[in-house]
């Protein structure tokens, strides 16, 4: 009898336990895929990269949620506790929303995260400076832009990464460029819009880099008549879509698509045959796009579907005579990009740079017959001074050990010190980064020739050259 009773008790306990587990899992209500977007009632101005006021830090912007299956239904304002909020980003599991926000009018913009089930928010970044454009990274981190003013950057926005609780904050860009509007590609790299601010102002271009700040390189630059005005977002068919503005004819911004595989030579204007003005784009899970668009300057930017295959606007998802739609995202799970390993070791003070042949240039690979002056020396130029002048090897190669996280440019000079080519774009190396380039101003589609550069048969030249030795941790990755 006791055995039967014990068995019964056992089964009852097990059944109750199982039921509890089962029903507790059902308390998570299923979520339809919603559209979350930023809207602003103020009159939009043309984008100004330098002040960013009309682009990133927009007063009284709201983040709102729309049910695409019921667009006529009421919107839910998600940022009710914020004076202004924008730049919504959905976590890979679809459960959280990252955004930049200002609680009060004169507060600095900070980074926040919202739980989409209960709409509770928590502050991730608490800085005295403005922060914006947060993007989730794999491994529980995020990347965002933060204003800084210092010797190397001058005054602009650098990219930073941190954990989702705000800890382990790391700066990852170190050149005098201002960076905004980042996204993460499926290969795990950060695609961001960078614009040189020193010594001259440059055009904004897409810069690609690993989340640890290594291997930063130009990914795409607009045509000579256009400049980028939005993040580049990867679609599920290997394209990057974004908005480009005409330098002269303002008010006719276009939706552009480039191929991930060959970004510099695959530009397609998806809206050249459509009048009006595009402001933002977001790829949808369906493969279609969602765009912010207005027919004329007197209209507000409204939210539309867009068919990239037929280059045609689709149905209107949201329009309101009182508001412009600034940017939009779709909720729901999405594929997590790859989590890239890092070679950065903060115990090391330098990085290594190898150039295979300074006399390889873009002109050679394009078949140009123009004479290319050969040079045998390079000059490494820092923000405020020349860091050294280095004789290159007979094969045109050089091998440098450069203080990490310090920006520099390289220019080739002749034996009399006259500049032949350059200066190059600003470069920085992260601690323990090893980086290579094929040549100076080389065609980015060229790969290195398979030969041993003479320069690596010797020790690297330390830059700046007035330093004879760098005492640092020895790292052997193997």
């Amino acid at each position: 009898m006791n055995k039967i009773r014990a068995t019964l008790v056992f089964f009852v306990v097990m059944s109750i336990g199982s039921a509890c587990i089962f029903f507790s899992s059902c308390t998570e209500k299923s979520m339809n895929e919603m559209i979350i977007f930023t809207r602003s009632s103020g009159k939009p101005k043309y984008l100004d990269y330098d002040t960013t006021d009309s682009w990133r830090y927009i007063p009284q912007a709201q983040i709102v949620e729309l049910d695409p299956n019921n667009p006529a239904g009421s919107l839910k304002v998600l940022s009710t506790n914020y004076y202004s909020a924008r730049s919504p980003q959905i976590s890979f599991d679809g459960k959280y929303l990252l955004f930049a926000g200002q609680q009060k009018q004169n507060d600095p913009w900070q980074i926040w995260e919202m739980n989409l089930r209960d709409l509770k928010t928590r502050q991730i970044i608490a800085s005295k400076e403005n922060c914006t454009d947060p993007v989730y990274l794999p491994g529980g981190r995020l990347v965002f832009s933060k204003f800084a003013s210092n010797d190397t950057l001058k005054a602009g926005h650098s990219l930073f990464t941190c954990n989702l609780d705000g800890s382990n904050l790391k700066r990852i860009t170190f050149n005098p460029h201002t960076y905004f509007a980042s996204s993460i590609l499926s290969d795990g790299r950060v695609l961001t819009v960078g614009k040189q601010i020193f010594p001259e102002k440059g055009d904004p271009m897409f810069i690609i880099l690993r989340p640890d700040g290594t291997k930063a390189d130009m990914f795409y630059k607009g045509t000579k008549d256009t400049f980028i005005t939005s993040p580049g977002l990867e679609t599920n068919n290997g394209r990057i879509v974004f908005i480009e503005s005409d330098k002269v004819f303002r008010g006719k911004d276009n939706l552009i698509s480039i191929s991930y595989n060959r970004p510099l030579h695959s530009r397609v204007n998806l809206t050249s045959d459509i009048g009006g003005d595009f402001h933002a784009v977001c790829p949808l899970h369906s493969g279609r796009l969602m765009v912010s668009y207005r027919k004329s300057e007197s209209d507000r930017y409204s939210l539309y579907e867009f068919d990239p295959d037929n280059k045609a606007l689709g149905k209107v998802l949201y329009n309101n005579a009182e508001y412009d739609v600034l940017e939009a995202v779709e909720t729901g799970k999405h594929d997590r990009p790859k989590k890239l390993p890092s070679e950065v070791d903060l115990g090391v003070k330098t990085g290594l740079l190898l150039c295979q042949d300074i006399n390889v240039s873009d002109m050679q690979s394009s078949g140009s017959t123009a004479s290319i002056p050969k040079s045998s020396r390079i000059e490494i130029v820092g923000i405020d001074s020349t860091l050294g002048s280095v004789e290159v090897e007979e094969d045109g190669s050089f091998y440098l050990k450069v203080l990490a996280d310090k920006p520099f440019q390289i220019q080739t000079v002749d034996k009399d010190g006259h500049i032949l080519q350059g200066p190059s774009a600003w470069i920085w190396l992260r601690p323990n980064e090893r980086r290579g380039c094929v040549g100076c101003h080389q065609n980015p589609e060229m790969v290195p020739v398979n030969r041993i550069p003479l320069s690596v048969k010797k020790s690297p030249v330390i830059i700046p050259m007035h330093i004879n030795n760098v005492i640092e941790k020895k790292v052997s990755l193997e």
Partner: protein
Amino acid sequence: MKTSGILSVLLFFSVLGLIVYFPGRKWARVHVNAKTAVDDHPLNCLSCHLYTQKSGFISKLINRKYLSPFNMAVSKEGDRLYVIAQDDNSLLVVDTEKKKVLKKISVGNLPHTVILSNDGQRAYVSNEWSDDVSVIDLNTIRVVDTLKTGNGPAGLSLSADNKSLYVVNSYSSNISVLDLNTGEERKRFDTGNNPTGTQLSPDGKTLYVTSRRALIAPYGETLESEITVLDETSQKITKRRNIESAYMMENVAFTPTGDLAIMTMIRPKNLVPSIQVEQGWMMTYGIVVIEQKENGRVIQLLLDEPNAYYSDPFDIVITPDGKKAFVSHSGVNTISVVNIDSVRSLIAESSPELLNSYSDNLGISSRYVIKRIKTGADPKGLALSSDGKLLYVAEQLEDRIAVINTESLETVGAIDLGGPNKITVARQGRRLFNNSGHTFQNQFDCYTCHPDMHEDGLVYNMASKDMGRNLTNTQSLRDIGDTPPYKWNGKNQTVYKQDGMRFSTVLTRTEQFNYNDLDAITAYIITGIPYPPNLQYNPNGELTESQLRGKALFDRAKDNLGNDIPENNRCITCHPPPYYTNLKMAYVKTLALSDDSMLFDTPHLNNIYASPPYLHDGRAATLEEIWTKYGKEDKHGRVNDMTKNQLNDLIDYLKSLRAPAYEHIVSKKFHAKN
């Protein structure tokens, strides 16, 4: 039993369970951490203790025998497809209409290629691991003859009159000319290193043989791989063309007009410090195009794109109208479709300098690659129907043939060859081994540097510390499960560590394997990579006189002068059978100035004849050079007392070393006989 008794037993087992569980779990954590070199690998006993079983009941229970289709041939009528099932040692006869396997014909070991006679009456199958060709009567569907060849027969081609069979011997690096009337080998010519592909020109006059491994050369010299050209009429070698900076030229095809010969190739960057993957700093892939005219040019064109690599090109076929070439990329499960007219235009309009620059230009492929077609796992051999309308793709690790319409360039069907449905852990590991999805932008995979799970004969500058230092000779992965530690410096005590985080940080530079994948690739490497038989130097276990003398020298304890050789300087001490390694670190005074100070993991020596160059940095081109050039101080064994003949004997013996598995076969035969 009373209730109190039951409770006492339950209590006893509960306490016992707790005592075993907590310390046991702690011990398991320490054990797994030590094996994997990470502290978060799941405590899954099956990972090591089940999936890596190489033999016995458990191994048989959890593993499956797959077919692994490799190369193919289609009948002229298009109704039959003949498929090499490499892991099954068979040729499958497939009805292309019904998409069914009609018959399986057992052939030799590790069949490689099948070709059909012009009259469609005979099929010839090369058997790479039994040094012969199976001749199959296609009317009776049975093997009617077996022809002896050189070592490692791979590519096959028939003479225009179908009276001679050309057999490319991949291991002995030569080509045999077999007389099909007598079945005898009439001639044999040296070729490039490790040849496999061969094709007769459409006019029947010229035979091309491509090679996979580069010619042995000192590190730093330009890499070159040979294409051997044979005049079919005179059956003489007429040209040896060295293709610069390329290797792994697996297969070749001619355009129907015969104006171009096109072959697959890899352009490695082994001389460039391995500091990044971005911008093609590790590997690039493409085709070699050779104009078939007087002073015809050799042009190398990449099939990659600036941010996308198409690794491990294997086979190439050209449609009968000469418009399209199809290239299989086994590393990315893709077929590239090349517009041949666009290639011709590009060649015609470009200056020699510009043509030369295309070999390193990732963007140029947009001029001639018109489509990428996805396939199943590990596409290898390709075959076109005689009307050119259908392309068959051997998906080696799917046991399946994909069927592609060559007009629409869409996959229109698949032929299931009837392999096991279950994908075992080791099979999944083999898929990972052959797939570039785990390197940044798919730039390379394990197979790229370890073709045939062996090694590619190249020395790489892995740039582990500073650039230009610590050159690394690629090591074979064959049967390495029992020979830890790994790497020349022995830093990785297990395959788990070798392929873990370190691997992704310094080599693949993308997300590391997840632990299921790591379990799978480890299971494959430990259980699934056998040595080929050593048919060239030790076909049956009976050593030659020279090899026996060499064995005595290998085992000796006294030198020629009668002096004792210190135990740690005898060959046999550090290289004991069955793997000919004592699994310990050693000092043999071969460090270069560019090496960090280190001891070397004693390498295993089975099939060592097939692994040139030698020493950790590949400085010894031959086994002999290990001692004649780099062993003058007798630190790598006592050898300087030897005569030249003795050294020859020693090397003969070393070349005879073969895997323990084959010694067991001999042993079993011996016991059965006696």
